[in-house]
């Protein structure tokens, strides 16, 4: 099994710690940085996609019904989606609550 990026020994990385595989940042689970997580009241969602556009991490994913879900493995909990949401259907709740 190939080692994850954070399991390799110092001599197992690429020359100069460069990145030769596109999209490899997805391996890094930034979700554990979060202290608050977004939550949607889907009754108020108008499927406008503003949250999808403003998320700096690409951690908002289109659901089958046209609303949006959160990729909580990568969502850092910045709250931009909640601030920008037109209808106020996204709110931030404390992790652990």
């Amino acid at each position, binding site marked *: 099994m190939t080692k994850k*990026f*954070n399991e*390799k*020994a*110092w*001599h197992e*990385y*690429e*020359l*100069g*710690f*460069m*990145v*030769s595989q*596109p999209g490899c940042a997805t391996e*890094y689970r930034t979700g554990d940085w979060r202290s608050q997580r977004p939550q949607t009241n889907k009754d108020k969602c108008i499927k406008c996609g503003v949250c999808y556009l403003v998320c700096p991490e690409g951690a908002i994913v289109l659901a089958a019904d046209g609303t949006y879900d959160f990729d909580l493995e990568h969502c850092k909990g910045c709250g931009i989606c909640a601030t920008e949401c037109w209808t106020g259907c996204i709110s931030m709740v404390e992790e652990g609550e």
Partner: protein
Amino acid sequence: MAKRVGIEVSLAISEAVKLANVDAIAAYPITPQTHIVEHLSELVADGELDAAFIPVESEHSAMSVCAGTSAAGARTYTATSSQGLALMNEILFIIPALRLPVVMTIANRALSGPISIWNDHSDIMSVRDTGWIAIFAENGQEAFDLTLMSFKIAEDHRVLLPISVNLDGFTLSHVIEPHEFLDQAEVDKFLPEYKPVVQLNPDAPVSMGTVGIPEIFSEAKKCQDEVLKGSEAVIKEVFAEFGEMFGRDYKVVETYRAEGAETLLMTMGSVSETAMEAIDQMCDKDNRKVGLIRLRLWRPFPAEALRAAMGGIKTLAVIDRAVSFGGTAGPVAGEVRSALYSTDQAPYVASFIAGLGGRDITIDDFIAVVDQAEKMAAEKEIHQYKMIGVRE
């Protein structure tokens, strides 16, 4: 075959860079490095050297351009001095981290202030921990030879690190000396074309210089350190190969009349030649058991070679040409003390600072240093460092 040419050392370095057939040069002129890049720009303008000469608005840009051209797979050269090196500082750290084999000449000059255009080693000492290989030349021939060897060392796939070739500003850079030049065919045989392992290329894209999160940063630094330490073996190999091909031998630590010596003087750079005169006087006229040890390789620090050169000496007098303000020793002496501390029969290491900002170190100064060091050793004087030749 090699021909002997009387030429200014700066121009000889430019000719070595031309013989190395570099692809890219990015530099900003600064005294006393100016003649090197001036001559290179002439060589490029006259069509004698097929390279991109990229004039830039600062040394920060010069080193940034070097990062780019080297990453694109070009054999890359630059030169600077003092304040220019200081302005490069930010990028200096990045070049070895990205494993880019840039070669840079540093015409060593004091850092301001007061403003000084004259020679000492405060510039290179201020970038000691940037991760570059640092080599010192004592005369023009060495500067010429080491420039050629540097490309071979830097570009070796076991190394892939940048190198600074240090020579004393004015004292070396501006003097006319006889140099044994090499033919292009000889150089081509010694120094093959640079073959990068990876390069910036749209057909096979890579990202260089990405973020290093805490989970990998220590591994990145460990890797850099191991490669730098490992480069010493390659440096020795290249020195040996050069010696075999061209008959001029180089070592990471050089000694002069050190056999049977009880006291060694230690120097780096062009003062070594004056120091040799002082040693000759002390040995031949006064029958003293004194020798000289010269550090050619500053980074990676050749600790093992240094220990091996100590023999049974009692006193080591280290001359530094820079101050580590408020420190425990001059920059070189501190390394030396540290390298010898845990060894059996470590000599008494006296640390002297001299030759700052163009102040000459004379034969008499060297003799006085040896006298003082021997006295301090006999009295087991506890000291950190002493600045000599200062009016009290």
